[in-house]
């Protein structure tokens, strides 16, 4: 078989086990969109234009609770800041491609595509960077869009008492736990969460930003002390 196709298929193959987590995540994104009062086109627009699950759910949560748009945008943007780190880390692997190609590759950058690709690129020198990455990243994109639509359609028919939107913080929790992988990151998470609970009464959902900033500072301080 054409070795280029092998690289593309390897990306598709390696990403497939992750779909078990992506499918419910995407369904929740669709359900949360309905709960926040969005229509199908807006829900799909959010998934296509932003294509970053955690920030989508946070934005929907805030839209649903009637937060000012500046808070919605600010929160989602802060959550997606980590993409800068992924961009910096994967950039050397993409430096060989033309700018137009890089601009396309960047659109599909997600936590999962980043994590898989960087691991594979470290292990194999002769893999096509773009094809392997696109195999994983575009698969994620397709499943994400289909899942969003399914969530919008399903979400409309489920009674409120079931509390399906509780799945939203559960998804964050499933992403949070592995993100707390050492003492400083654990300190950042625990402090950020605790401060956010205490500050939950602040207007404009500022408790979230106060908690997050406090958590980041405590993480840095903990790291400094353990050196």
């Amino acid at each position: 078989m054409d070795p280029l196709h092998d690289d593309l298929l390897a990306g598709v193959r390696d990403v497939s086990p992750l779909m078990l987590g992506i499918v419910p995540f995407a369904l929740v994104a669709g359900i949360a969109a309905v709960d926040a009062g969005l229509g199908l086109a807006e829900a799909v627009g959010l998934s296509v234009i932003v294509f970053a699950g955690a920030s989508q759910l946070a934005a929907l949560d805030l839209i649903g609770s009637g937060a000012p748009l500046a808070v919605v945008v600010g929160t989602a943007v802060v959550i997606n800041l980590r993409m800068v780190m992924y961009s910096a880390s994967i950039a050397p692997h993409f430096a060989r491609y033309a700018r137009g190609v890089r601009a396309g590759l960047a659109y599909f950058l997600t936590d999962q595509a980043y994590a898989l690709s960087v691991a594979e690129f470290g292990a194999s020198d002769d893999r096509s960077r773009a094809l392997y990455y696109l195999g994983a990243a575009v698969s994620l994109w397709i499943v994400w869009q289909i899942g969003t639509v399914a969530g919008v359609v399903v979400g409309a028919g489920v009674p409120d008492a079931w509390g399906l939107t509780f799945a939203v913080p559960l998804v964050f929790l499933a992403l949070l736990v592995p993100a707390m992988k050492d003492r400083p990151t654990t300190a950042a998470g625990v402090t950020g969460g605790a401060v956010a609970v205490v500050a939950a009464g602040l207007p404009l959902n500022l408790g979230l930003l106060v908690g997050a900033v406090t958590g980041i500072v405590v993480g840095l301080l903990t790291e400094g002390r353990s050196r």
Partner: protein
Amino acid sequence: MTGGGFALVEGALTRGVLGQWQDVFGGSSDVWAAIVVIGVATYGFRLSFIYLFGRIDEVPQSVKRTLRYVPPAVLAALVFPDFVTLESSLIATLADERLIAGAVAGAVAWRTENVFATITVGMVALWLFRFVVFA
């Protein structure tokens, strides 16, 4: 037709077009504005170093260090208030099906690092306590 008539026709046309826009796209232009701004900023983050690589040798170490704490701090600040609401007494704060379900799901997330298992166990725990234990 007078100038006023033109203005009237023009106004009706504009309303018609906007009305159709709202019918097709299902609503609020505020929400669309938020989606586009978040999307543009997020794409900017994704593209940043992939585009610039070659001009800057490396990300400043201090930026890297700070970015490392963004995911845990932000995710925890989002999650915790959905599980815990401070009440006037400790018992009222703790006897909450969301907190119990969150704690159980947290344990599953820690053991399995599996999103699907975390959602499933968390939802079942929520329903168990909401519809059976605390019912």
